[in-house]
């Protein structure tokens, strides 16, 4: 996949983020759980990639692995995550810590639990500022207040001293954005930044993120289970299922000619204004597979209405379609599903 180089950037040969064959598994009581399975993608400076998939498809695990936040004796990671050319996978904690908050930041899925309930929100912003930027207390305070103003919090001076419990969900999410953007990171990993908020607030938050991103020329990985959210706000889209990338394409291309039945089903289940998103997905028929014991064929086959024998026997590889920037993993892609035999693939490595 190629990206138009950002003309002003001398380092453009190296993408900001390059994830190659990244896998993350958890050792659980029931066996090895492959939450992320050989995922590869690239992200250029200032650009946005959407990661979409239903609940449990591994989006959060992917985002956290990229960030390097998942660590522990029961986690196994393989592959490579390069940030500005620097390998992050296996990098020592001290090295990661100097990046975290400063050059890459994360917005967590649930604003209700991701803020420290017993710390004033002002402090939660300034501690990041004071750690990474060499500024004194009053400067940090002023910066924090202006950040609160930027993310659209009314009377930021007063809110500076509030506890998270005193704010609404939307306000908390804004605070999280302020924290994440405090040190102007190059890369923002936004993990479902709007799930659980009501629809109008969702749009506000996403617009806010978009404009802040534009101002700062910041790249963003926007994780969501809602294809509608990424439709207008991303350059590229990655569709995930059972920890794997099952389709990947530039946004407009994906919507104009989607290849995966799963992507189609996701789109069909996209919440509309009439049914707010916290009535969770009008979910796809059937249950996601057990990640500790995947079936031999396509993991989506048991739920796929187009599935045929081959789908249940062999897992389809991730291949390119007519266009080199459109990849999908399906034996019988949409639109080509006329003949009984699978279309011939030109397998791209």
């Amino acid at each position, binding site marked *: 996949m190629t990206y138009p180089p950002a003309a002003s950037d001398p380092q453009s040969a190296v993408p900001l983020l390059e994830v190659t064959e990244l896998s993350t598994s*958890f050792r659980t009581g029931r066996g090895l759980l492959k939450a992320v399975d050989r995922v590869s993608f690239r992200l250029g400076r200032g650009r946005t990639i959407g990661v979409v998939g239903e609940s449990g498809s591994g989006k959060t695990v992917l985002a956290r692995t990229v960030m390097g936040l998942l660590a522990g004796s029961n986690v196994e990671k393989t592959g490579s995550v390069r940030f500005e050319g620097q390998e992050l996978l296996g990098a020592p904690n001290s090295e990661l810590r100097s990046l975290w908050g400063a050059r890459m930041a994360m917005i967590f899925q649930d604003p209700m639990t991701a803020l420290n309930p017993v710390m004033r929100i002002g402090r939660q912003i300034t501690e990041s500022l004071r750690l990474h930027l060499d500024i004194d207390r009053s400067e940090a305070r002023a910066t924090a207040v202006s950040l609160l103003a930027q993310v659209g919090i009314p009377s930021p001076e007063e809110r500076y001293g509030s506890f998270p419990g005193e704010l609404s969900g939307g306000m908390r999410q804004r605070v999280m954005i302020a924290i994440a953007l405090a040190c102007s990171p190059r890369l923002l990993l936004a993990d479902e930044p709007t799930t659980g908020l009501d629809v109008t607030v969702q749009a506000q938050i996403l617009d806010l993120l978009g404009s802040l991103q534009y101002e700062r020329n910041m790249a963003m990985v926007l994780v969501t289970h809602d294809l509608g959210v990424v439709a207008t706000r991303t350059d590229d889209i990655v569709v995930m299922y059972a920890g794997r990338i099952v389709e990947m394409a530039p946004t407009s291309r994906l919507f104009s000619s989607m290849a995966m039945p799963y992507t189609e089903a996701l789109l069909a289940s996209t919440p509309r204004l009439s049914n707010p998103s916290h009535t969770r997905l009008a979910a796809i028929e059937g249950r996601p597979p*057990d990640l500790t014991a995947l079936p031999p064929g396509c993991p989506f086959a048991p739920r796929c209405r187009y599935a045929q024998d081959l789908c249940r026997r062999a897992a389809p590889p991730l291949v390119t379609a007519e266009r080199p920037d459109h990849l999908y993993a399906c034996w019988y892609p949409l639109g080509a599903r006329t003949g009984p035999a699978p279309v011939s693939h030109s397998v791209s490595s």
Partner: protein
Amino acid sequence: MTDPAVPVEPMDPRSGVSTRAADAVAGAAVAAITEVTDRRRRLGWLFWLSLGWIVLTILAAIFANVLPLQDPNLQSATLNAGPSTAHFFGTDQLGRDIFSRVIFGSRVSIVVGFGAIAIGLALGGTLGMIAAYYRGTVDTIVNAVSYVLLAFPALVAVIAIVTFWKASLWKITLIIGIASAPLIFRIVRAATLSYATRDFVMAARTLGATSRRVLVKELLPNILPTVVSFSLIGVATVIVLEGSLAFLGLSIPGPTPSWGNMLNQSRTGLNTVPGQSNPWLVIFPAAAMFLFLITLNLVGDRLRQHFDVSEIKL
């Protein structure tokens, strides 16, 4: 730093089961079985050793009369002697056999400890189940009363009552038993509440089972693990309370031996100049009590982990 992903497996067996219910039923059953066998193994040798020690102590207390022991109140000619073949643990200031007194002395701790908790369970446990089952006004009132009683410092109350009422084995047991009821009430109530709204209880209720039947057949078996593990720790707590009273000379008066009053006696041994003090008088009852308490706590704690009862915050 803790990594957030440490598999504090299984986090909570109950919620675990409910999420697993979404999975294939067969898979869940298999997982549940392996989990149980896994846990049984995890009780560990220390648990069984401790349980063995508790049983041994209780048996010795029950059969103290028929065991080949010396009369615990017989005053021999050898005073303040160290351990010997004639007196395994030596003798006290009055020439009584410490070994025999330690074994007979366990009776007080055991009777008071288990007796008081039994009384507490009968009172607080019953009320706790009833309050949690019926909720409503009964629950509100008993709950409020339990809070008030809990705020009352138990030891001070017990000391006061004992002072004005003179101690005997049964009175001490009764008083501590009543004093422990509010806490037991809270534990049993919390445990019952967590089951009272479960499907199987609801099902039984809607199927027209009598309340009594639901309480005894459905709820009791489920809260039993919680109750048993907390009760063992409770027994240890009561034994400490009785020991403190005895040490202050406020529990069962001599010459009946008890671990607490033996330690009380030993004070005189500590006041004397080094050559004349009798450390054995301190060491043996202290060790007997220590072992009994630590094994009770250990067994209770292991059971608590085994049944995955969290340290309930009340």
